[in-house]
């Protein structure tokens, strides 16, 4: 993983943009995550000062919602849908297989920093179950073989 020092300029703009709005904490954190790919520790303290709330009140929200992550992501995020239809159509088998092939647990990132493997509850494409989502692109009617081909394709590109 490249470990460049955090560019804290971004956060200043984000805080300014959201600071005065009502119920702003979640959209503010979402914007930070969009800018950095995750929520860096340093930003929590800055948000805490700007909104005049304790860091624990921010962590309370961060740990409640599945969307927020406190560690950096891999280059690609591979989501395996485990909604009802995907489960029935074999989504869990694909998830288990990918986890064993990539040697990560769901939620984790591969050692080379290429892939973050995630389980998601439902991406709403149940008609094409089982579904994988690589970054933003959904792939329907997946098999175990196709899943690993997809990984290899992204690894090569």
């Amino acid at each position, binding site marked *: 993983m490249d470990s460049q020092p955090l560019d804290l300029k971004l956060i200043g703009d984000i805080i300014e943009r959201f600071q005065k709005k*009502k*119920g*702003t*904490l*979640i*959209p503010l*954190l*979402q914007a930070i995550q969009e800018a950095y790919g995750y929520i860096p520790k340093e930003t929590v303290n800055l948000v805490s000062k700007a909104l005049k709330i304790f860091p624990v009140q921010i962590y*309370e*929200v961060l740990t*409640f*919602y*599945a*969307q*927020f992550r406190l560690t950096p992501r891999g280059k690609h995020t591979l989501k395996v849908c*485990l*909604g*009802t*239809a*995907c*489960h*029935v*159509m*074999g989504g869990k*088998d694909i998830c*288990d*297989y990918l986890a*064993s092939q990539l040697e990560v647990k769901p939620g984790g990132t591969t050692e080379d920093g290429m892939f973050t493997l995630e389980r*998601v*509850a*439902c*991406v*709403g*494409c*149940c*008609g*094409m*179950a089982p*579904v994988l989502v690589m970054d*933003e*692109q*959904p*792939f*329907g*009617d997946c*098999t*175990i*073989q196709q899943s*690993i081909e997809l990984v290899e394709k992204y690894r090569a590109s």
Partner: protein
Amino acid sequence: MENAAVKVLICEGTSGVSAGAREVLKAFGVELARFNIDKAEIISTGDRGLFRDVLVDIITPKLGRITYDFITPEKVPQIVEEHIKGNIPVKKFLAGKQYKEFFSGQERITLQNCGEIDPENLEEYLANKGYQGLKRALGEMSPQQVIDEVKKSGIRGRGGAGFPTGLKWSFCLGNPSDQKYMVCNADEGDPGAFMDRSVLEGDPQAVLEGMAIGGYAIGASNGYIYCRAEYPLAIRRLKISIDQAVKDGYLGDNILGSDFSFHITIKEGAGAFVCGEETALLASIEGFRGMPRSRPPFPAQKGLWEHPTTINNVETLANIPQIILKGGDWYASVGTESSKGTKVFALAGKVKNTGLVEVPMGTTIRDLVFGPGGGMLKKKIPFKAVQLGGPSGGCLPADLLDTPIDYESVNETGAIMGSGGMVVMDQSTCMVDMAKFFTAFTVEESCGKCVPCRIGLNRMLEVLTRITEGEGKEGDIEFLERMANSIKATALCGLGNTAPNPVLTTIRYFRDEYEAHIREKRCPAHVCPNLVKFDVIEDRCSKCGKCFKACPVDAIAWEKKTFPIIDKEKCIRCRSCINECDQMAIE
């Protein structure tokens, strides 16, 4: 000007995109240019509902509207040359039997514009009587009259619980306040449901118009749409639609020259199923953990930031403009005595045609699964159950297939109507595993506030896991039933109250499967990993070789007209072969 009115409509919602709609769209652009047809318009619409399919409609002055299905970029040159240029439709690509089967028996009210109009173009919505309902409400009706009309329609909340919408609005109107809020619940968290996503992607303006009418009726000048972040396309289209509506004066200050102002803000959810519960949703909009609170006070009394608030589901709101425009009596003429109108179902699982199906209330489950659904996916593996209502619902067996779909009849079975997810299962689906799946889901999504849900569900999951691993004991079923009933009776919110339903219905209708796991250490559906031996059942095997092709580690030896042999040393027990087999011949 022979090409003046040529239109090419391409379904480009999430399902269309993953089936390759973007490539098809590009191909049409290239081909139209190549044939110098510059007066043709390519319109990208939302999904019409049928999955795994890129639908293309071509409208020409001579031939009218013609639908093609399963279009790939390779087919585009021929269509452009023969149909658009030469006015002869390409017969072999025309939408065929499956398309007709899927749309037979459907009645489209909520989905009337989905796949028909360009959702990012307000003009097209207006051309289909868009904002006429709002115009009528503001011009001719008092808020009370709007509510009376909605009451007359008999529409009930489509989010799951089925509370009468008109009544909900009247509670909020009856609570005077200087500030009220209209909230649209687009946090479609039920795994197995995608109606709301499709409506938001295919007809976002209808939802906005419904919200504005609701805002007028209850006296709110501000609205929020709480949409899951997992639906990026829906959010993008909502943003575009709000901007367009504000620009043309259908939202914002002094709408259509009246005194009524209404502003809509989008709030993106951050991934918590419990936020579909209304009090949790409000907490989340306010920026806190999405934890439900006890009611009363109800949101209509003290909701968002302590102000009276009404929360309606996407599908409910999408129906409102038509109810106001065509009248409550018209809407009430569709459906049954107690459940009016139509309901959209997200049909998925082991069924031939998957997608969005809108049918009148009162249609039976059988008519839906074997009508538009086209029957089972694999011919040799018969129907076992249909799951209604997601993690709050239940699995219904074959002998309940003739249950009419209305709120009361579905509730009697132990399932719930829910938001409309309908997942079909065949004999290769294990009911104990399904119960475990839903319980694992609710355990994960439980907010942890009340004890029955936080701890009770965990205890149930432990027992279910043990059963699926072949470690079940006598008394486990009874324990599950006892625990389920106490959770139902004592949990704080709707999530906890309904979370045991999948376990209770599977025990009620498929007790023998539980018993097979516990007593015989056998999984009749060949699903539970510890109970599968990966042996080929030669009586059933058709020697087709699909398992051989599906195996990722080459653990299966097979030649034409021979039974496959599975090398258990090599086998990684990934179940690829079992999923691929059409005969359930691997146990």
